[in-house]
């Protein structure tokens, strides 16, 4: 039961995303994927909350709520 509680929430602001794919490529566990021109979450359960996607997104399009 605690396993599910620990899952973060990844918010993607599609209006800001320009589809550069930096987040998809440098996610160490490959949580994200491209859906058309914008990024989307493929497998949230793999997320280790390293925040690299949020840090590297040049367009302010990803937010990771870890707690």
């Amino acid at each position, binding site marked *: 039961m605690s396993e599910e509680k620990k899952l973060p929430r990844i*918010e993607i602001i599609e*209006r*800001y995303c*320009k*589809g*550069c*794919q*930096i987040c998809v*490529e*440098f996610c160490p566990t490959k949580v994200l994927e491209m859906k058309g021109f914008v990024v989307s979450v493929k497998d949230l359960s793999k997320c280790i909350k390293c925040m*690299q996607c*949020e*840090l*590297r*997104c*040049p*367009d*302010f399009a990803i*937010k*990771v*709520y*870890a*707690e």
Partner: protein
Amino acid sequence: MAFDYEKYIRPGKLPHIWCPGCGHGIVLKGLIRAMDSLNLKKEETAIVSGIGCASRLPGYVDCCTLHTAHGRAAAFATGVKMARPEMNVILVGGDGDGTAIGGNHFIHACRRNIDMTYVIMNNYIYGMTGGQFSPTTPHMMKASTTPYGNPDPSFDIAKLAIGAGATFVARGTAFNASQIDKLIAEGIQHKGMSVIEILDDCPTTYGRRNKYKSVIEMMNRLKEVAVPVKAAEKMTAEQLQGKILTGVLFKADRPEYCAEYQKVIERAKGGAK
């Protein structure tokens, strides 16, 4: 918890104008995190820029900002700092703006050691005007004005700043995003001229001409060439071939210009002797 960037962004300004994959957005986020970590007040912080892609940055930040003439960021910023020494003055700009058109202002701001922080986003090219080569375009790399390769050797901005007299010089990359805010914060705290060079990518005008297939390839290049200063100490000269040092490269203590100028004012008040 996700970082609240909106706190420092002017409402309605996003999405920004930079191209997909441009590292300037990563630097903007780093600058905002640095401002937040130091609890800089918006009314006591001035961000000054010249002209160029990177110089569009102040338009997005909700604090005192100046968007000035090409290359003249350091000149305007010096004016701001001299008139209001209590302000935190941060300069932003690109490699062409800072070291070519504004090269003169840049070296003299370093020489004076005035308490400002200069964040130079080095993407090796003039992006906004169509990809002309800049003083930092590496040897034999292509630009729109050097279609057969650039014959000029390139500037090392960090070395230039150290040589000109800046007292805090650091270098980061757009790939190491978490390092950017720490370097900028350290630069802002340093009393004297701080120069922080951030190696950046320009996929649109530099990457395409130089056979980088995508922004990912450019980011991977940054990842490969960047070597932290501490790690470099243990490496041989051969291993360091083609690598670029990152981290705090130089730090020194020297009298700061505003304080020195105040001494002159005090002396003048005493009358000529």
